[in-house]
């Protein structure tokens, strides 16, 4: 049984590790440091941690101010409030200024669970990738989250990193070769490609195993960086397998599916299917129940593949 760990735990771990060596690192939160795990940094380095209270617009405005003064800033809250409530501040005062702020937003998607619809963000990737210069990363497991977070923090400029509440299976090795902007070919295959991001990568792996029983050979690609997207790996997959299914814990409008479709339609049009939240609000429930009800599971990927291959 694979080890399970939430990607937000990786965030807390990385911040704690970097606290001592990176003297310019500032961490900020909006009263959610226990949940986002930014509090792990506050425990070891309280003088460079700033809680701004339940005031997300001020959080990101102040983050910009610190960044423009030479700091590297990781500013966290739930993805709904980061990408939603503070959207315009991120767009105008972090995106447009190019400020070195990493918006590390947790509790994205349906797996936030019992908190329900007001807290289940399905639009954040769409919103954030529309900001010029914004790097958008959605790691699929705690190991890749750790590797990618360190790289995001080391690079200069704005980034949006999407992290989850629920514990998810670890799929990457600690020494995995991961680069911002480079998709990962997890499994080669000739019959069809599944391109997934975030928690849907693990679902894609399970779906591929299921489809292999029926001799359908699935290529699996982890697109952890939705922006800048790895066009090469996508085009190659479209050319070589002839059909693409995307899978994300996000709306089918404007997220990974759309980003992949933009590449495919311009370079190598093939039929596509998109697995994700189908333009409806969520509700309260256990993460696994909700994934099932809202059609974001391995079974849904299997069904999409079979339908496409008809």
């Amino acid at each position, binding site marked *: 049984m694979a080890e399970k760990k939430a990607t937000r735990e990786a965030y807390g771990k990385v911040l704690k590790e970097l606290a001592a060596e990176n003297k310019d690192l500032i961490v900020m939160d909006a009263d959610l440091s226990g949940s986002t795990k930014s509090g792990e940094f506050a425990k070891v380095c309280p*003088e*460079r941690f*700033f809680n*701004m*209270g339940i*005031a997300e*617009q*001020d959080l*990101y*405005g*102040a*983050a*910009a*101010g*610190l*960044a*423009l*003064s*030479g*700091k590297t800033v990781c500013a966290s809250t739930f993805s709904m409030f980061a990408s939603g409530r503070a959207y*315009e*501040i991120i767009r*105008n*005062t972090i995106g*447009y*200024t*190019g400020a070195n702020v990493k918006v590390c937003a947790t509790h994205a998607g349906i797996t936030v669970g019992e908190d329900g619809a007001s807290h289940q963000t399905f639009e954040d990737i769409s919103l954030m990738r529309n900001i010029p210069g914004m790097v958008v990363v959605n790691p699929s497991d705690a190991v890749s989250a750790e590797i990618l977070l360190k790289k995001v923090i080391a690079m200069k400029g704005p980034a949006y990193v999407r992290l989850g509440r629920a514990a998810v299976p670890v799929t990457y090795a600690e020494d995995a070769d991961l680069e911002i902007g480079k998709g990962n070919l997890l499994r080669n295959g000739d019959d069809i490609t599944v391109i997934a991001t975030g928690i849907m990568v693990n679902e894609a792996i399970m779906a591929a195993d299921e489809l292999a029983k029926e001799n359908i050979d699935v290529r699996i690609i982890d697109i952890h960086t939705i922006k800048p997207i790895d066009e090469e790996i996508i085009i190659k997959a479209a050319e070589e397998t002839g059909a693409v299914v995307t899978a994300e814990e996000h709306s089918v409008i404007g997220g990974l599916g759309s980003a992949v479709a933009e590449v495919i339609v311009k370079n190598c049009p093939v039929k596509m299917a998109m697995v994700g939240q189908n333009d409806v609000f969520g509700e309260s429930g256990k993460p696994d129940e909700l994934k099932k009800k809202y059609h974001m599971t391995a079974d849904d990927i299997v069904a999409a593949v079979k339908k496409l291959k008809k």
Partner: protein
Amino acid sequence: MKLKGEYGAGSAASKTKMELGELKKVANDIRIDIIKSVHAAGSGHPGGSLSAAEIMTALYFDVMNIDPQDPMMKGRDKFILSKGHANPALYAAMAERGYFDRNELLTLRKLGSRLQGHPNMHRLPGIEVSTGSLGQGLSVAVGMALANRLDDDPGRIYTLHGDGEIQEGMFWEAAMAAIHYKLDNITAIIDWNGLQIDGKNDDVMKVAPIADKLSGFGWNTFECDGNDIEDLIIAMNQAKNIKDRPTAIIAKTVKGKGVSYMENVAGWHGKAPDDELYEQAMKELGGEL
């Protein structure tokens, strides 16, 4: 607290770097520059730029520790034009102070210009942060003030806000944060000209009493005649001595001040004068066409 008669002339805070008469001339030159640049652009925001001419003079010609030849000077004071649309006043002050040649003011808002319609920090050295969307400047100031404290940087952060602008809730989030973090290295100036786009503040969305609101939050406040350079300088100097909390200067101004047909008229918030009105303004201000 009201400034006149309380801290007044003769106190240490009233010492100025230039003669008062010279400072008044600078303010008038700034007014001429505002009208010239907005007229040349065919668009822009004269009303709220003219009301701030003395504020910009006080900051750029007396109070702020800045170097036009070294806009990134370590330890400098920083100015954030939170009411970004009033940048004709900022650009004018910067040009008069020597950040760039006065002739460049005529490129305001034109394609390719360093003088964008709302300030862009990457195009024009000396702009601390790009603004334009109201209500955000005080939060940025909070961040900069926190950074200065971490770095033992003596630089002070000055912000300028519109009175309509403080209808934005984010301003009050930042006001709360500045108190929580005891940011005594922030001076926020409110250009209280009483007008906004759709009319008087009192008719659109009441903001007064502004000083009461901010002191209710814990801020030190001064109220003064915002078109009186001496009063402004006294307030700004006094603010430097206040410990453990930020200062707000509620500067009562006249929107459109200096141009008779613009004074106290809401319609001149965001409109350029035509050739005829431009000539009249130049005559009133004593500027050359």
